[in-house]
């Protein structure tokens, strides 16, 4: 590293000395060595260059003495050579490395959620008041056997049970190791309490959290970390992870520093070694290989666990999804280009994949055209920011959605995008015991529960407004969507009319 950085600090921390009571909470809580205390002089000071704007100090300061400012661009404004490009280039000139980042794509690509509007009932049919009438969000995931036959229990032994969700929102795959035990437990507890699912991600399920396994989607990824028969049978759903929205086409890398004893035991790898997930599964080089793995997992669990296959939303996702359905999967999970990650090369995160809205529309339409939509559940992931996004996704054709980033934000994440450093000040994306304890799973679970509760209630309100009292009547019901500012191709792909067009 050169001693002189060509780049001035991105952020400045301002301390209002009139307010500061020198309780030192900021210095104790800063995860990035930006807040310092000099005991000899009884003086607090900051090293701005270290600040990542995670807002931990600002949040913890009992007197509101701290503000973090984004420094003005260190250059003459240039619409083409943006500050981001400049900083990246200089960083790479200094390090020669691949740019790494965390969380989801933060670039200003269009959001189709923001170009879709919902319908509501007026006069000709009544809206339904969720406070007065039952409003059903229960959603089942899995393959539907049709037609329904009356012979009771006739196919019970071979029938893979469907998995009920009390709300069509699950917690995305975030592996133990990439996130702390505390964060992981928060997700697990909230999922169980609310009656939905969390996803273990690719790092296995810690022994002490098996009590939540009946609400776990247990993932099998290319690294096969923590995968054993007990794990597969404990979970409610098994998910084969092929791809991830934040980094389609590439594998994962959890640095050795995050592999402590507990993570090592759960992942079944030596302590302190890097956990490398290969880009492909080395036993899946074709759709028929996938089918083999699907059925291997089904055999291993006596056909009692629905198998999900998770792919990134890429250009030909509809065809891929069809293949997955025909390979025997019960659930297809599609992760859009806004999906988050603990660590990804910046260029991949920001420039690969397609928006989840288009992917949902394409996959749902394709499966319907092939008449196999009822054979699989479609789960969408990647950048769900609100209950309205969820409603729009379901209207486009998803059965349920995964939320990851939103869940982390509920847990305290401030999107500083430094997950890959393992220094997370909020105790989420770290294994540092000084920081993980900042996330009390009791509180974490409560906050996540509250989020699900709030969103679910909003979904009910929106459904009621549309005159619908059950979520399945929204699924794929694109008539309740209208586009704004979308061109004809976009409207056609999404299968929606433009706002202003009649029903």
């Amino acid at each position, binding site marked *: 590293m050169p001693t002189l950085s060509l780049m001035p600090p991105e952020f400045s921390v301002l301390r209002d000395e009139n307010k500061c009571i020198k309780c030192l909470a900021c210095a104790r809580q800063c995860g990035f060595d930006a807040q310092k205390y000099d005991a000899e002089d009884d003086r607090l000071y900051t090293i701005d260059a270290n600040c990542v704007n995670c807002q931990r100090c600002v949040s913890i300061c009992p007197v509101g003495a701290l503000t973090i400012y984004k420094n003005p661009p260190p250059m003459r404004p240039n619409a083409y050579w943006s500050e981001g490009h400049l900083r990246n280039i200089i960083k790479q000139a200094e390090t020669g490395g691949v740019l790494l980042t965390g969380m989801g794509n933060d670039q200003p690509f269009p959001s189709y959620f923001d170009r879709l509007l919902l319908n509501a*009932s007026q006069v*000709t*049919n*009544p809206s*339904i008041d969720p406070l007065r*009438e*039952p409003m*059903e969000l*229960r959603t*089942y995931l899995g393959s*539907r*056997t*049709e*037609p*329904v036959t*009356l012979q*009771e*229990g006739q196919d019970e032994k071979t029938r893979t049970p*469907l998995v009920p969700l009390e709300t069509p929102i699950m917690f995305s795959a975030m592996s133990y190791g990439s996130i702390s035990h505390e964060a992981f437990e928060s997700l697990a507890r909230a999922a169980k309490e609310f009656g939905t699912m969390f996803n273990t991600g690719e790092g296995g399920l810690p022994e002490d959290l098996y009590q939540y396994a009946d609400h776990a989607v247990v993932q099998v990824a290319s690294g096969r970390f923590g995968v054993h028969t007990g794990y597969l049978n404990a979970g409610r759903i098994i998910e084969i992870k092929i791809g991830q929205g934040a980094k389609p086409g590439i594998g994962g890398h959890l640095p050795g520093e995050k592999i402590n004893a507990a993570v090592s035991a759960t992942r079944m790898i030596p302590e302190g070694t890097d956990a490398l997930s290969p880009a492909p599964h080395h036993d899946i080089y074709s759709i028929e290989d996938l089918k083999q793995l699907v059925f291997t997992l089904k055999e291993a669990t006596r056909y009692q666990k629905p198998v999900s296959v998770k792919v990134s939303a890429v250009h030909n996702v509809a065809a891929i999804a069809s293949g997955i359905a025909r390979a025997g999967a019960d659930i297809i999970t599609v992760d859009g280009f806004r999906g988050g990650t603990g660590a990804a090369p910046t260029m991949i995160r920001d420039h690969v994949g397609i928006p989840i809205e288009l992917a949902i529309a394409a996959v749902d339409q394709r499966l*319907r055209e092939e*008449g196999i*939509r*009822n054979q699989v559940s479609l789960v969408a992931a990647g950048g769900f920011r609100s209950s309205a996004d969820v409603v729009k996704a379901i*209207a486009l054709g998803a059965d349920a959605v995964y939320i990851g980033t939103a869940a982390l934000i509920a847990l305290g994440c401030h999107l500083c995008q430094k997950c890959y450093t393992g220094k997370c000040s909020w105790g989420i994306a770290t294994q540092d015991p000084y920081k993980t304890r900042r996330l009390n799973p009791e509180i974490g679970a409560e906050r996540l529960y509250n989020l699900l509760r709030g969103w679910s209630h909003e979904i009910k309100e929106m459904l009621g407004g*549309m*005159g*619908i*009292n*059950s979520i*399945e*009547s*929204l*699924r*794929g*019901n*694109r*008539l*309740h969507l209208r586009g704004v500012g979308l061109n004809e191709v976009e409207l056609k792909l999404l299968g929606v009319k433009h706002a202003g*067009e*009649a*029903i």
Partner: protein
Amino acid sequence: MLREGDYRIPSGCAISGFINKDGSRIDGSSIIQSIALMQERSNGLGGGFAAYGIYPEYKDYYALHLLFEDKISRNQVEELIKDNFYIEAEDRIPTRHVRAISKAPLLWRYFVTPRVSKIHESQETEENFMTQLVMRINAQVNGAYVVSSGKNMGAFKGVGYPEDIGEFFRLDEYQAYSWIAHGRFPTNTPGWWGGAHPFTLLDWSVVHNGEVSSYGANRRFLEMYDYKITLQTDTEVIAYAVDLLVRRHKLPLELAARVLAAPFWQEIDRLPARERDLYTRLRVVYGSLLLNGPFSIIVGFSGGIMALNDRLKLRPLVAASKGNTLYVASEEAAIREICPEVEEVWYPRGGEPVIGRLEEEAQCRLSA
């Protein structure tokens, strides 16, 4: 002016129907009287009837009721029919002049039976072959529309108040063991005869009051099963849904009703294990066929009728009985109008089907 099929048309309506379970047949004057009483619920933009048991002499033939806007379409359709069917009889549907009715299309009926070779060619069952042909005509032949296609039944519908339509079609001259009727209140004025109720497929006929908010979900589900949705009306998807569930997936009508107006999960959760399993499967597998939003419907079919309300009972539906006759209607007055001394009157709960079937003996007699 866009018409049915070009976009969705919500409407409010009046419905009425009855069945003589002993199979005795009566003419159409009483159903006209009943539906006429609810004129308030219609606006003169659509009325229609379905009648069962009206063609005993052709009971083994599919009775195709067709409307044509012009001769070109009629020629096209007739070619199609000749290609695929033996035609036992054909004629113009008898009408009489009614002042309120104008701009009637050409109305024809054909009593047909499919050519076996064509069925083989299609690699489908006879009934699927029939439905596909009907949908092909509706979707592909501009200006032609199949009003009904069942056996020993027929639908009669058009633009106007239902009593005028009944008069126009001379329903007083038909004898049927069950009649259903519809007076329409669309919230726009497409003025197309095909858009009136009932909607039919094979021997299913559906009249409907309400607006189904789940239409998009229902429709896209049915499309997976090769139903060509042409009218964009709720009634059409209801008819197809019943056809899928009962004819193709072999569910008893009672259970099909539990799909269209599914019990709430909280009710299902309280059921004994076996029933819970069945009802859970019904909802899970056919969730997309749940008719969400306000509706009351009467479904007519060979040998019976079924009335059903949405599960919140957001639209009116009354049932009554006297002797062997079961009446259902939007309003009690519409029943009392034709049967002043009903023995029993009740208001079916939301989601609870009211089904009337021909007695076994009558069934045998009619199909003999």
